[in-house]
């Protein structure tokens, strides 16, 4: 029997999977890689927040309310930090000249738990002397280090984004896949439900959902509640889009072939249809994370988010709403800058992903 031996030179290159091709195309987009690197750094720092932050998030320095940022200076080849003094009673601080301590790395400081599990006391940097604090971003009205709170807050805000979209997109994909695949009444009912959810203004939905939970909860419970609320809002629009994609994928011949082989409906959806929606899902997910981060900020502004003394970017910003604060102590806006950078980075990455996914073979 004749065999068709293909042209040997054509197959000399190592085969690339669709993922590898995608990755290669993504690497060519500089701005997406910049966004990606920023995000990797942000998430790594959030992971090691306890270590990188010089102080604990609730450590109050009663001598130094509204302290401006103390940046280390270079003095005879050493990084040093001066001591500040309050001259009058209204939070005006001045550096005392020639009274400095060097900044050291890997110093002992407040105890914390790395990853929430491992107790430790070593911090990335510090002076080791509590009269010579390193407040990179100043302190707030309770004398707490803004930089440390920013880092601890990043743990909350960044993880809410990731976990939130994981939950809502998984739910959206499954519901959308089932709806589009089976059509008929299943489809109609599910899609009407999605439209219902999508048509309720998000703000009211958030408030009503919050009202279904007991008013006082532990911070861990509040954290979980926020994720649940945000996911509940987000899954419906994803479900709609996946359902549309499923309708067309369902007619593809490789799906028909799987059905003809006798594959069960669930496996057809999970093995054949949903994987071919990934290129859209990844892009949509990346571009949606900022909304979850901002959603947490909204919840905090409404007073139903993460509660003090825990830090989140949302409640830090909420506390800084006062015009007097903004005028006199602008470093309190640091969380806003952090959110800005994060959202920008996600958008850069998301645009790059979309371009890379677009011309898929």
């Amino acid at each position: 029997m004749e065999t068709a031996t293909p042209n040997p030179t054509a197959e000399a290159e190592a085969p690339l999977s669709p993922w590898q091709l995608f990755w290669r195309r993504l690497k060519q987009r500089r701005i997406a890689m910049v966004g990606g690197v920023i995000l990797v750094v942000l998430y790594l720092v959030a992971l090691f927040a306890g270590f990188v932050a010089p102080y604990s998030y609730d450590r109050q320095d009663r001598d130094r309310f509204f302290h401006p940022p103390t940046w280390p200076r270079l003095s005879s080849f050493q990084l040093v930090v001066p001591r500040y003094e309050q001259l009058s009673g209204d939070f005006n601080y001045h550096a005392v000249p020639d009274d400095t301590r060097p900044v050291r790395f890997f110093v002992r400081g407040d105890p914390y738990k790395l990853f929430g599990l491992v107790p430790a006391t070593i911090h990335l940097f510090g002076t080791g002397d509590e009269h010579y604090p390193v407040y990179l971003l100043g302190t707030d009205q309770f004398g707490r280090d803004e930089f440390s709170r920013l880092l601890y807050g990043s743990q909350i805000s960044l993880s809410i984004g990731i976990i939130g979209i994981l939950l809502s997109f998984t739910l959206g994909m499954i519901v959308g896949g089932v709806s589009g695949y089976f059509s008929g009444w299943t489809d109609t009912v599910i899609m009407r439900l999605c439209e219902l959810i999508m048509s309720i203004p998000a703000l009211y939905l958030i408030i009503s959902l919050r009202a279904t939970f007991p008013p006082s909860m532990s911070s861990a419970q509040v954290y979980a509640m926020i994720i649940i609320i945000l996911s509940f809002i987000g899954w419906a629009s994803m479900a709609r889009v996946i359902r549309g994609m499923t309708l067309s994928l369902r007619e593809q011949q490789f799906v028909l072939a799987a059905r003809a082989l006798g594959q069960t409906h669930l496996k057809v959806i999970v093995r054949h249809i949903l994987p071919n929606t990934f290129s859209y899902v990844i892009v949509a997910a990346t571009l949606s994370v900022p909304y979850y981060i901002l959603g947490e900020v909204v919840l905090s502004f409404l007073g139903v988010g993460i509660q003090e003394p825990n830090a989140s970017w949302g409640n830090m910003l909420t506390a800084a709403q006062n015009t007097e604060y903004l005028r006199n102590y602008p470093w309190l806006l640091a969380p806003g800058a952090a959110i800005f950078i994060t959202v920008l980075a996600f958008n850069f990455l998301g645009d790059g992903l979309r371009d890379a996914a677009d011309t898929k073979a």
Partner: protein
Amino acid sequence: MSLLEVKNLKVYFPVKHGMFSRTREFVKAVDDVSFAIEPGETLGLVGESGCGKTTLGRAIVRLVEPTAGSVLLDGEDVAQMSGSVLRARRRKFQMIFQDPYGSLNPRMTVEQIVGEALDIHKLTDSKAARQKRIIELLKAVGLDAIYAQRYPHEFSGGQRQRIGIARALAVEPELIICDEPVSALDVSVQAQIINLLRDLQQERGIAYLFIAHDLAVVEHISRRVMVMYLGKVVETADAKTIIREPQHPYTQALISAIPEVDPESKRQRIILPGDVPSPIHPPGGCPFHPRCPIAEERCRTEVPAFREVARKHFAACHLAGTKIASPRNPARSDAV
């Protein structure tokens, strides 16, 4: 007993107007079709777009639900089965698709594509056995074992069709519905795949329902040929006979429309006026009468019966056997 016996198969699709209105119209994609295929035999199915041949193929494999009629495979009515019983029976009949680029999941390797067939029906009991079987199947369709780890986009159209054939063979079917398997391939590759299908048939005794619009290909590979028009079978006969002595005017026009490679041929082309009609509003009486060069009054009102007009040769025409030798009809007048 025939391997496959289709009896009075109907596939009607409702045409819905709006969400809540009751269905008033149907697209009669397959309208009362009956035929049989013997084990190891190839039945060719020809027709143009809208004739229902693809829908018929899919209805037999239960990718489309039959509206009425029965599909008897080894005596069991597949059209009535469901659930795990149907799933188990699916081993007996498989399908090869037309589009080499759409018939393989772009995110699965060749090994996963062919292996899925084995996994669904639990045909192998160890990883090693599974691997061995996959390689066997790839060899059987002329592909090297090293291709198992590759993705579909790295292959040419002809190779992808081979992968699709390997997938169908994995469950050891008795019948394969070939839905235009070579139409989307390069001419020089078509012959390879046609030869491969014939060889597999001879080695394994698989029966084929070979659906195509190219009569020359169908004649080459089939023992018998069925011609469909607007959901109905209009003629059935041995392949050679139907080409040499077509009885139905549509078959004659179809044969004459094929461009011939022979430059000396002085054949008169029969050009049918009008377009291939839409199956939503089929004409009354004989479905072909609006385009038929020899249509009479009877053809407009009476549906012709599908009857034996010569030995083992069936046609649905009141005037079966009349040769259309008319000069070319200009394509302008009386279009549908």
